[in-house]
């Protein structure tokens, strides 16, 4: 075996240009597979980060009617839905996957929030508790947050985010100004923003629909003030923050289970988690499906590379008939001869595979720099490609190897 590998390197080295050209096919095939798979996984990682928010693993658990969120502003809430209070939160934070939880009310802000003639067309009003800002990772840009007396005295104060501030105050500082919510005056005490980790980029219509209700503009008021604005028995939602992105699904499901246990009857209205991770996965599947076809195309170039290897090995067998004949005369059995050519094909493609990985990683890096997609090399894929290229070599080396082994030693010797 050692001798075979030595002869393989001898053979490759003695025809440097030819070997390099043969390897080129393999290099291109492997490199494109690595580059494409890296781009696919990088894109998936980007989708996940954009949608789910790196480091901000919040899950919203709210009432659903069937597959759609129940909007209590115009939909009937069934009798069996009982009013939720903050008393349920200790049960929820007791879940292993849940780090923190907040109980809140929400409502579409359409045409409800005004500052003089300026109105908010798009956005959401939240009635929140003292955990809401922390759970969502919101930080103040200016002004102050809610104080305990804001909650206890049901004060008419509001926190708004950047989008609302720009719509209503056109860039001026909103702090201590008054807005009208459903006809009632509320004092804006501060402006908040998402903490730095969450920076969504919208690149498709799918992204857009997933984001709008999350980033369309938020107005927060104390949850205790909520009933003065809207109905007393409005159902509440719960926002939980999971320990990690991968725990989000489980955190949401368990929270929904606890909330559903408060229902006094059953029907198609149930608490469900709005799982952004699931949505991210759907988007990932969409982008992977298109890119996976590219992998097939890249595989074809690897196939062509393999045929190149076979071609050159056939030439090599013809060239070395004398040597093959001599080895047979000296007592090399068939297996030894075919083993030599198989090894040479395997070594050729393995070297091509390794070079292909280097080129592929380089390509992935370039793609990442140009398109902004994060680079994501899976060593599992890299290992699989090397194995695959060697398999290609052995597969396409088999025909020449068998041909070499079958050579008649006399013919082989006579030819020189």
């Amino acid at each position, binding site marked *: 075996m050692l*001798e075979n590998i030595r002869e393989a390197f001898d053979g490759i080295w*003695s025809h440097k240009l030819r070997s390099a050209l043969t390897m080129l096919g393999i290099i291109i095939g492997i490199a494109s597979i690595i580059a494409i798979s890296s781009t696919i996984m990088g894109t998936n990682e980007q989708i996940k980060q954009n949608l789910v928010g790196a480091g901000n693993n919040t899950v919203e658990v709210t009432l659903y009617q069937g597959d759609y969120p129940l909007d209590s502003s115009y939909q009937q809430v069934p009798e069996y839905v009982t009013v939720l209070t903050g008393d349920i939160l200790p049960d929820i934070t007791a879940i292993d996957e849940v780090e923190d939880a907040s109980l809140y009310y929400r409502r579409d802000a359409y045409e409800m929030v005004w500052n003089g003639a300026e109105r908010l067309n798009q956005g959401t009003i939240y009635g929140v508790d003292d955990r809401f800002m922390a759970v969502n990772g919101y930080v103040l840009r200016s002004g102050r947050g809610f104080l305990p007396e804001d909650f206890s005295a049901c004060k008419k104060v509001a926190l708004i985010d950047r989008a609302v501030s720009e719509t209503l105050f056109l860039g001026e500082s909103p702090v201590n100004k008054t807005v009208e919510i459903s006809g009632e005056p509320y004092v804006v005490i501060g402006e908040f923003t998402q903490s730095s980790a969450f920076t969504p980029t919208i690149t498709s219509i799918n992204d857009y629909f997933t984001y709008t209700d999350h980033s369309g503009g938020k107005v927060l008021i104390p949850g205790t003030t909520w009933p003065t604005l809207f109905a007393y028995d409005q159902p509440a939602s719960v926002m939980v923050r999971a320990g990690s992105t991968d725990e989000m699904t489980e955190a949401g499901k368990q929270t929904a289970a606890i909330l559903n246990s408060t229902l006094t009857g059953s029907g198609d209205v149930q608490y469900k988690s709005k799982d952004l991770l699931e949505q991210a996965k759907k988007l990932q599947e969409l982008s992977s499906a298109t890119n996976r076809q590219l992998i097939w195309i890249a595989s074809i170039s690897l196939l062509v590379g393999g045929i190149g290897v076979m071609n050159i090995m056939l030439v090599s067998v013809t060239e070395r008939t004398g040597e093959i004949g001599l080895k047979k005369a000296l007592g090399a059995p068939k297996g030894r001869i075919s083993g030599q050519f198989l090894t040479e094909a395997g070594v050729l493609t393995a070297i091509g595979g390794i070079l292909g990985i280097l080129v592929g990683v380089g390509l992935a890096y370039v793609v990442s720099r140009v398109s902004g997609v994060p680079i994501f090399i899976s060593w599992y894929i890299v290992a699989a490609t090397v194995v695959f290229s060697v398999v290609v070599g052995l597969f396409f080396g088999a025909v020449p190897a068998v041909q070499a082994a079958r050579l008649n030693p006399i013919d082989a010797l006579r030819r020189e």
Partner: protein
Amino acid sequence: MIISLEHIEKTYGTGNNRVPVLHDVNLAVEEGEYIAIMGPSGSGKSTLMNILGYLDEPTAGVYRFDGADNAHAGDARMAAIRNEKIGFVFQSFHLMQRRRAWENVALPLLYGNVPRKERKERAEAALIAVGLQERMDFYPNQLSGGQCQRVAIARAMCTRPKLLLADEPTGALDSKAGQQIMDIFDTLHEQGMTIVMITHERAVAERAKRILYIYDGWLKEEPQE
């Protein structure tokens, strides 16, 4: 008796393209004999050589080597016989250009699965026997034709075979180098080696103890007029 050929026939091709090469060849060679086979080109002497060396199989007839009939023994068995019991020397040496002299000599030992250390020792001993102790690490292109043929002889002998088959061993050499090769053959013969040599040079053939002739596939004891 080391070689026994009985009614050996060899035909190439099939149907209308059949070309008979050997006709009813009978030959007995005792251990330690030194035989030369002479004949013009195309007479079938190379084919006879290939059959003797298990590089080719006869179409008909029985070939016993070292007491055994190895017809249809299979590739692995044939390879083992060639490796262990027969040494080949060719007109054009057939050395591997990318291997040093001693590595060329050790090549058959590799196929015999001899350990590396022993391979080198035996290869060196064989090279010393042909007077090339100074050239062990040389590559074939650094050696003269005569030296190359001596390397080839060392390669043939290092497995300690029972039979040395030489196909025009001096054909590619000048007369002085040819003389040296024939001197080595004489020494091997004195040591008891069985040698069968093909040549078309009378002077070379006369070094052997017994000369046979082959004409159009017929083996004769006497030269044809």
